[in-house]
């Protein structure tokens, strides 16, 4: 029997230069580029994944909305967020201020999609010497946002990248 196919929109939110585009690039194309190119508007990428669900598996086309970070929330963003089944909130583990913005992004997202799940991600975990956010701080933010799952990741090495998208896929199926 063929697996059911679902298409789900997922938004990546976070301040500029936290690595949203790099996470998508690693997940979708398994590539990484150190050079920072700021994102304008939105770029939608598609990735198929097999997600365990209810003792079986579901094939999910995840439509990843990689959007410009660090802008004030406005109606423009509202149109970007509409219809999202889930979101990945990304901060840069080497810049403490990027963790502080997480609540704003979560609030913006839930104001449009109140029942959709989040995953909290601290990216650039490979830069150990420059780390400015602890696991405990990241966990506290995740706990305060509906006890969302949290990950430290590295788009550069690929650490936990697959896992975080998988986790969101499972949450999306669980909250359908």
């Amino acid at each position, binding site marked *: 029997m063929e697996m059911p196919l679902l*298409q*789900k*929109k997922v938004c990546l939110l976070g301040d*500029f*230069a936290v690595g949203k585009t790099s996470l998508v690039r690693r997940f979708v194309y398994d590539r990484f580029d150190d050079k*920072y*190119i*700021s994102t*304008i*508007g*939105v*770029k*939608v990428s*598609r990735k198929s994944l097999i997600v365990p669900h209810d003792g079986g598996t579901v094939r999910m086309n995840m*439509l990843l909305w990689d959007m*410009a970070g*660090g802008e004030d929330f406005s109606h*423009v963003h509202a*149109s*970007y967020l*509409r*219809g*999202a*089944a889930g979101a990945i909130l990304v901060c840069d583990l080497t*810049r403490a*201020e990027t963790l502080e913005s997480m609540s704003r992004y979560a609030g913006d997202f839930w104001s449009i999609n109140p029942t959709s799940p989040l995953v909290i991600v601290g990216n650039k975990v490979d830069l150990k010497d420059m780390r400015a956010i602890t696991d405990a701080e990241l966990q506290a933010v995740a706990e305060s946002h509906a006890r969302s799952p949290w990950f430290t990741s590295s788009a550069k090495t690929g650490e936990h990248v697959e896992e975080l998208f998988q986790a969101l896929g499972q949450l999306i199926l669980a909250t359908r």
Partner: protein
Amino acid sequence: MDDVKDFDLWLRLRTARRQSIAYALTDEHLTVLMCNQAMNEWATGGVDDLVGQHLPDVFYELVGIEDFLYHLAINHGDTFAIPRIYRSTSDGQGRYFDLQIEPLAEFGTTLLVLAMDVTEQALMEQRLRQRRNELLLLQAQLSKANEQLTYLLHHFVPQEVARKLVSDPHLLRPGGEQREATVLFADARDFTSMAESLPPDQVLDTLNAHFEVIADAIRKYDGTLIEYVGDMVMAAFNVPDDQPGHALLGAQAALDIQRGLARFADECLGSNMPVLHFGVGLNTGPVIAGYQGTRHLYKFATLGDTTNVAFHICSRAAGGQVLISQHSMERLGRRAHVTPLGTIHLKRRRALLPIYELLGLEDAGTR
């Protein structure tokens, strides 16, 4: 009436065509009824003709909002827009378009979908945002580097000196000024034998724990910590800034050091921390205060005979004792409770130096 409606639609589409705007008409289920060639070019998935296609299958940006658009079509809601959508191109630069979806109330539940090429504006925005973000990142890096440098400066250079250097970096040059100062030395007794019996890290831990007590007492009376040399601490009062009553401040600090060390020794009872005893020496007189060294390495120093004498007086002090010179004693006057200990002879000096054990201070107030 139908003619008017047809004309209206014809006009909208013609305007779109003239302005190179891509357009499509769909029903409320987003099935494409008609479109121009430009619309095909924005679609993903390599479809030559969108007619009959379900629009979200070729515009992934519409996935997830099918219900919203259905209600937009049947309720004739407000125009919905998704600005700055990116499409990759072979040259890597990419193209951008604004997607706009509006219900055509005159045509039942039809939706007009427009895609306007905004590549030029978006690329300009991208360049500006790139520069802005790079500057913000650079600013953050500089701010962090500045914090680290300030931390280093304030922990590796005497605090008062660091503060003056930050406010006026031109001060950092060899040379100094002659001024009166009270110089204090505190030196551990029997340190060498203790150090030989302990592992190196415990030696440093022990020394640092005692230095913490000594430094706290010096800072309490606004003294300047000049340096740590082996098992010895050197401090000065009235450098680099003016401190009226510097001899009294130095004497208060010296007594506070011994009181603090006695308390610390009590706290160490029953622990693994070995207890050190320090002799403290104090002298008041002229010093050269300034930056000593070469362009490769500077340090703040208080040089001169006053410093040498303070060092030698300290070397005569037993553990727990504070010895002061005649000059310091004269500055303290009757407030000082002292016991004269006779005179000491210093190398290459004819005159003998009277020294006193400082036992306490009267009406000096405490901090």
